[in-house]
């Protein structure tokens, strides 16, 4: 019986408006994402250059390494930069990303405190070029960009890694958002299936709605112990406008945008995903279906600002983390 309790009925999922993998692939990705546009998002360098062209803030590019020969000159390229991130242009799932927080007497220091030598960094870049981290193992390009100094207001909500904000943008409308907080269990990575905490965000305000770890509800960060109910993402409207603008930039109808908050520059686009996962439904405790159906009925060609306003108006929700007076009285 307990085994059976772990399962639910398809009708109940349908009532909740949950979207399954098959429906996502056929109905949304297959219909709204043209295959020829994929390289724009699968290659982080292309995304970055495109973002600069469209005026969408993203971390500053220090340089790229395209040949094994160029690996030797990486030392010169890095001088004068305190913190930087080296990532494969075609990597997926955060693989092969090397974060250097600061450089002290020729030692490169990772956020965990581990020290690397220049040779270590060169080997990492060489591995990236040979395709160790890229999809299908094809030769790749290493992208080096400045380190994000993430906003202090969010510092208490995360353990080690940078918290990022995923916004699903459908036909240019932000439909659902969540924040991913790394934990000790997730080893500083913001991957939900590895144990990061996912916090569903209210599209209207950027405030936390509900939090889950390993698909089970939680109310405070498991490592810092900080209460999650108070979490509100600052500069929320700027962030939504940035995310919505990615639709014009890429032309992809069903898009996952990953953003971070920088201390100086505010919301920044980190990367885009043409096949965003479905875990966002778990963190919001709500299916995507109704929101996507509503957006499908909207006309094309609405400017980004109006789209954001539309979403903020229609997708506003009450937080489940704070006991609001009316729910308290109804449950009493």
């Amino acid at each position: 019986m307990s085994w059976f309790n772990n399962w639910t009925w398809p009708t109940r999922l349908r009532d909740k408006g949950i979207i399954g993998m098959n429906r996502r692939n056929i109905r949304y990705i297959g219909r709204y994402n043209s295959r020829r546009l994929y390289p724009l998002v699968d290659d982080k360098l292309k995304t970055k250059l495109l973002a600069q062209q469209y005026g969408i803030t993203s971390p500053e590019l220090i340089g790229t390494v395209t040949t094994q020969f160029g690996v030797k000159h990486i030392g010169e390229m890095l001088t004068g930069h305190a913190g930087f991130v080296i990532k494969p242009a075609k990597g997926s799932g955060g693989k092969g990303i090397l974060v250097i927080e600061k450089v002290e007497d020729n030692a490169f220091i990772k956020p965990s405190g581990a020290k690397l030598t220049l040779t270590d960094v060169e080997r990492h870049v060489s591995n990236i070029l040979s395709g160790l981290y890229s999809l299908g193992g094809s030769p790749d390009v290493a992208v080096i960009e400045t380190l994000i100094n993430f906003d202090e207001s969010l510092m208490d909500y995360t353990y080690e890694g940078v918290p990022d904000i995923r916004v699903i943008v459908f036909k240019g409308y932000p439909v659902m958002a969540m924040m991913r907080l790394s934990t000790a269990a997730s080893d500083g990575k913001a991957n939900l299936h590895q144990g990061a905490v996912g916090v569903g965000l209210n599209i209207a305000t950027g405030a936390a709605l509900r939090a889950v770890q390993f698909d089970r509800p939680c109310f405070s960060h498991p490592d810092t112990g900080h209460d999650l109910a108070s979490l509100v993402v600052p500069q929320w409207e700027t962030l939504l406008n940035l995310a919505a603008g990615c639709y014009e930039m890429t032309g992809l109808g069903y898009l996952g945008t990953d953003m971070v908050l920088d201390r100086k520059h505010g919301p920044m686009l980190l990367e885009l995903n043409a096949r965003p996962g479905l875990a966002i439904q778990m963190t919001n405790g709500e299916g995507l279906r109704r929101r996507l159906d509503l957006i499908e009925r909207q006309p094309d060609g609405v400017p980004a600002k109006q789209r954001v306003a539309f979403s903020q108006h229609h997708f506003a929700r009450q937080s489940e983390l704070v006991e609001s007076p009316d729910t308290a009285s109804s449950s009493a």
Partner: protein
Amino acid sequence: MSRLMFYIIVGLLLVAGIATSVHRHVQFEIPWLPGEQRQVWEIEAGINFNAQDGPVQVDLALPSHQAGYRVLTENTASSGYGLAYQADELGRTAQWTIREAAGSQTLYYSVQMLVSQDAQAPVQTPPEMTPITPWESPYDTAASQLIEQAWARSANNATFARELIRDVNGERQGENARLLLSQENPAALVVRLLNQAGVLAREVSGLLLEDGRRRQTLSSWIQVFDESGEQWSIFHPLTGEQGKPENLLLWETGGRAVLEVQGGTNSRVTFSMMTHDQPASAAVRNHYSEDTLLNFSIHSLPLEEQALFQTILLIPIGALMVVFLRVLVGIKTSGTFMPVLIALAFIQTTLPTGLIGFLLIVAVGLIIRNYLSYLNLLLVARVSAVIITVIAIISIFTVLAYRMGLSAGLTITFFPMIILAWTIERMSILWEEEGPKQVLIQGGGSLITAVLAYLAMNNPWVRHITFNFLGVQLILMALILLLGNYTGYRLLELRRFKPITDDEKPS
């Protein structure tokens, strides 16, 4: 493309598939079920030689009715050659002749043998006692000593033959036997010694029937007549085992050469064979029916290609299984169609050996691959190194299994090595990035898919249907198209999204 168009295409495929299948069922009386059937072996002999710009005469010995098998129909394919069947008391032959031929020549002879318990061999005339060619010294004493020893230990012709074969080839092989074996091959030597002792015997050629084998050759057997010259039995020339194995088809029983080519060089004959089931009535008249365009069947191809197609036509079943498990159930596999290829290997190895072999290869491969990752190699070089490793593992296991007397271990070579190497590479990367749990999930998923695909593909009914009804392929296509259009939930998603459905009342 509109939905309507899609459903029209699927509908057309379904109708066409069902119609051609029903047509074959009605017109050719091919039953839907594999049961209540007669087993028929189709054997094809391919003769190759280089003609020397002149007249050519080719004589090929042909099989006759015999215990367990009955000749049903026979065909030849030989453009430009004259053909005559000849029969005498020593057996039947086919004779091809041509006035002028040059270059590489190929002639085909194919025969359908019906497996029937009550088939009997025609009475065989024992060979004339051939004049004994005397042995030279010192072989003469060796020969007579061998005969004396075996004679003393035996009671009649059959036991004498058995003892002699054991003396020549078995554990008792002595110096005498080794000396004589330098002069003759084992089968010929035994026959010569038997004849010398006054026992009627001759070397005959037989074909061991195994489904789907190609490029086989005949093997030698020894036929020994009893004292009266009426009864005979067959002996294995190396083990001395008496009696005809059930799957042995005697091809030539007259003691003559199987293939004789005049006017050609480098002649050889190889055999392909396969078995299929036919209803008893259709088995008799099937091949007399006209080959029309509607009789579009694999059976009109040469046997060698038929044997290939028997396997190829099963692949869509495996593919359907993969689509089903991924789309409807949501099982994760490493490499989309890798499980189908593994399942194909399982068909050759049988399931338990296949599973053990697969796990052994992948486990050892992962350990070695783990070491390779320290060497910091480029991807292509690393995968190539893994391929060589896999080949080495397979060779070592094969030799070990053979040494330990596990003949089942020999079939491990049927595994697709390059696919295995990629599997190991993928699993190893998965291990490094996501941890061993994901490796177990995906590896286990692949294995479950492979086993289910194997069970589906190895089912006798499925084999019967896919091979006999080509229309089924269209139905499979339609099913896969329909599955590719399924937007509902996967079975495992009912578990994944369960937490959402119970938070109406937060605890």
